[in-house]
């Protein structure tokens, strides 16, 4: 019997794996995909509660989260391309452009 807790377990697992990816990995692409994974977990939670309360509002919020994720993808990937072109690396430790100021 699938219940609210089963869906909550899956969405919390996806969210936690996203947080762990942001903590543990140093590849910018994997960090970006971890953020997407967190958004996905929360989307699943929202849709579960939409079904639970038989209300449409959480699904509308989910549509907006997906739209924000699309906007984020456009900006994030163009920034990654710029950084990779100038530094030739995907390591987050190398991208210290914002803290170095004029030196870079």
């Amino acid at each position, binding site marked *: 019997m*699938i*219940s*609210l807790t089963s*869906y*909550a*377990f*899956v969405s*919390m*697992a*996806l969210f*936690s*794996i996203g*947080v*762990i*990816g942001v*903590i*543990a*990995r*140093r*590849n910018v*692409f*994997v960090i970006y*995909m971890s953020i*997407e*994974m967190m958004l*996905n977990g929360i*989307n*699943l939670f929202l*849709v*579960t509660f*939409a*079904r*639970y309360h*038989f209300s*449409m*509002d959480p*699904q*509308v919020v*989910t*549509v*907006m989260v*997906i*739209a924000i*994720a*699309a*906007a984020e*993808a*456009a*900006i994030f*990937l*163009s*920034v990654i*391309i*710029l950084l*990779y*072109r*100038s530094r030739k*690396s*995907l390591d987050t*430790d190398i991208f210290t452009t914002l803290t170095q100021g004029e030196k870079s």
Partner: protein
Amino acid sequence: MIDLIFIALAFSAISGAIAMIVYANPMYSALGVLISMLSVAGMFALLNATFLFLVQIIVYAGAIMTLILFILMFLNIKEEDLPKEPKKYTLIALGAVVMIPLNILILKAVAKLPAKDFNITNSDFGDIKPIGIQLYNNWLLAFELISILLLVALIGSVVLAKKRSSKITNTGDEA
């Protein structure tokens, strides 16, 4: 039957997400995310959200992940460009330990809620029409703000791309 489908979808969603944080090559990570997103789309279908099922497949799995895979292939990343991650598994274990209390809290809170029937119904709940009515009746301001946000993202990525091309001509044939 629905239980079996749910278990299969949950298994592939979580294993795709684990594949994402374990593989060193970002291409395999992207494929793991793709599997995970398609499984989440299947869960949306189980939860009677038919419109979001389609949006998840078209926008997330179709557009965003294709964009990521395209960029990965476009950059032509070599093995030596990948960052060295000697402490990866230690940090993953540390992150898991950090996340356990939050998980226990949420799951305990959710388990206390009264149980409800989660079977698929035949009503038009989750169809595109009620979502559209709700969106344009109660969420009109948020909808307009989202459209401005997408416009800003569009302009921003165009500006960033333009800057890159001028930089390449400045630094010569380094790229």
